[in-house]
């Protein structure tokens, strides 16, 4: 831009917005997550077989036309259990992430905006929590709240809140120094309005990326907890406890471990790809640069 010759009237170089194909990571990630969500929704309502029904005649059957993904040691249909497990896992993950994001954003915004002693005390506490590995913290909390579906949500939600609070606080601190925040104050906007109108929307891009990748971690953590026997109690299926249950039979019935494992891996891959794509999309500065 060598000169600034601006013209009154219509804008000069605005390109007509063409329908562009989404980025490849959005397509792959979106497809994977789409399949996951569809499976979870279906699994919540309908499964080919009852995922809890025992059938000792068919135990450890290999994948066949009858049981597409085979059966487990009690003769339960693996596909049905995976579908039901997807519903449980996704539901737990969504609630956990929501809890962590709401709590973390509130804490981070408050802390970053207040600064001073309030900020120091909150952040010292936050850092202490961060110092524990999330899963260890969740294990401890589960011991307190009890190992069930809602216990996991609360425990993992609390365990992941500090990292959200950190990210939000960091973003708030850097945004606070920007001149548009000063501009908002000169306009006469109240602190609350400035926070809601200027600071929060600018936190959304990093938050979205964090939330999507956290969704993956939570799914993994939930599986890990179930694997350790501290998650959703059996016989209700989750991917984690299916993986755990497959361990003794890895030699005879390899599909018992492979399919839940594959589900977890593909979901994580999909979430990470989608997370990047969503960030690119949400930030107006990234639009049109691709």
């Amino acid at each position, binding site marked *: 831009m060598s*000169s600034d010759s601006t013209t*009154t009237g219509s804008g000069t170089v605005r390109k007509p917005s063409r329908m562009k194909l989404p980025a490849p990571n959005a397509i792959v990630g979106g497809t994977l997550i789409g399949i996951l969500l569809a499976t979870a929704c279906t699994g919540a309502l309908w499964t080919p077989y009852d995922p809890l029904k025992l059938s000792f005649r068919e135990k450890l059957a290999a994948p066949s036309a009858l049981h597409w993904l085979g059966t487990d040691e009690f003769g339960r249909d693996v596909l049905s259990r995976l579908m039901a497990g997807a519903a449980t896992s996704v539901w737990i993950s969504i609630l956990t992430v929501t809890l962590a994001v709401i709590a973390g954003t509130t804490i981070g915004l408050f802390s970053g905006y207040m600064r001073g002693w309030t900020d120091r005390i909150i952040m010292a506490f936050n850092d202490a929590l961060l110092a524990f590995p999330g899963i260890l913290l969740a294990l401890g909390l589960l011991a307190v709240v009890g190992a069930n579906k809602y216990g996991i949500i609360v425990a993992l939600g609390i365990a992941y809140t500090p990292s959200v609070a950190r990210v939000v606080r960091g973003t708030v601190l850097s945004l606070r120094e*920007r001149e548009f925040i000063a*501009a908002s104050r*000169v306009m006469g*906007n109240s602190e609350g309005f400035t926070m809601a109108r200027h600071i929060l929307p600018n936190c959304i891009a990093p938050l979205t990326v964090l939330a999507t990748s956290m969704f993956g971690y939570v799914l993994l953590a939930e599986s890990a907890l179930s694997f350790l026997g501290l998650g959703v109690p059996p016989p209700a299926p989750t991917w984690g406890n299916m993986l755990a249950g497959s361990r003794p039979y890895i030699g005879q019935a390899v599909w018992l471990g492979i399919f839940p494992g594959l589900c977890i891996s593909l979901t994580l891959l999909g979430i990470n790809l989608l997370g990047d794509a969503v960030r690119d999309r949400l930030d107006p500065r990234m639009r*049109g640069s691709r």
Partner: protein
Amino acid sequence: MTTKAAPLLDVANLTLRIGGSGRTVVNDVSFQVFPGEIVGIVGESGSGKTLAARAVMGFIPPAVRLEGGTIRFDGQDVMAMSPKDLRTMRGSKVGMVFQEPMTSLNPSMLIGRQLDEGLALHRKLDASQRRALILDMLRSVGLRDPEGALTAYPHQFSGGMRQRIMLASVMLLKPALLLADEPTTALDAVVQRDVMELMVELTKANDTAVLLISHDLGMVARYCSRIVVMCQGDVVEQGLSEDILARPQHPYTRKLLSAMPHRLPARLLPEAKTPIVAVSDLVVEYPGRQGFFRKGEAKRALHGISIDVKPGEVVAVVGGSGSGKTTLGQSIAGLVKPTSGEIRFNGKPIQKSDAAYWDYRLNCQMVFQDPYSSLDPRMTIRQLVAEPLRLVPDMTPADRKARVAEVLAEVGLGDGFAERYPHELSGGQRQRIAIARAIVRRPSFVIADEPVSALDVTVRAQVLELFDELQKKHGFSCLFISHDLGVVEQVADRVIVMQDGKIVEQGPRDDIFDNPQHPYTQKLLAAVPGLESTPEGGVRLFWRRTENDASIVG
């Protein structure tokens, strides 16, 4: 004067193109630099001046391809040199000073070692000889404690000092050619002049030729014997400095010249009863670093400032960095809490509990320095400009919409811009939006903190003109903060000169510019050119001198 010897640097028909898109960024550029001569390349950002100069060193970004032309340094073809020869040439025969003193020195290396690096590489000297040379050079660039500087890190020096050190490190090797790419752009006006003087002096003493790249025509004209004017990759004009200034041939050169600040006749303002803003004995202290148990020592930014701004008046506050001018603006805007003193707006003190507070808040607006950070990146232009109207009582949505459209038209941006985001606009356009946002409520007082210092010269001139126009149209008073007296000359009715948190001089613009009393004011003035128009449509520059530097020939 230039025919006596073979050129030191001969660039002929140089053409550079960006690989993928095929856009030509440097197009058929030819110029020469003779030994001991200072040649300036002038152009705005995007004119290709930096690329052309970097090609001389053999530094071309990977995406850029050489399409044609030759560069001969001392008779040798730079493009055909082996990497080894190129390395010998860089540093020992051609030196380079970059724009950004903050990043061009390695922050984790001692100054002494950084200076030693080049010497050790290119000269066969032992350590004590090198040390003596370095100390000598540091002394000649004006460092007070050269011994101490050897064991100091770059962050311990100010920008001006770093640029001197950079210059020292380059001149140590006594290169035949010095490439200086916007060497003083990041510095404030007074320091800028000191560094330039030093550079000229040092290169003259070592018989080094200089290729000075800058967007500042005034500065280039002052120090260079010849000027090459570049615009969008083309050389539009080149010749002796006096000729270019006095008889510019190309329209672009004329545009550059007309973009230099000029003074308009002083305005007569109506006698006012009460000042719109009255600041008395304002003291602002910033708390020092706090530990857990002790309070840090406060740093005093303003030492009891008193100023008045009358309705309709434009008051310029001028000073170098650290003079407290920005703090003054921010405390009047309500962004910094004064430690003591009083600020009255329309005769009433500013107090949040006061009923008059809203009158102040709605009527006192601010334009910030950096158009890249003063606009919320997530809001469209329409939203940005409409936001201040939210707090104006008794305005219907239709009124607001009409007002936004009106103001956008006033700042020269049509409705087509309204739905765009700030990142889609150029710096100048963004600053227009920032001005639009400040005046959309029709405030009676606007604080402009360095509103044009982040902009290119011609854009700067346009924005200044716009600001001037709007001020006359709407009659708001203005506190115009700047480090550059040249900018102020064009807009101000009255000038206040600040140094170290105190006012050193104030008065009507013409008095300050024509008859400065305080040495600091004189120094500031010596850094900006005065202009006289010539009949051919060009200008003649003259330089004001401070009383104690008669040695400089303007």
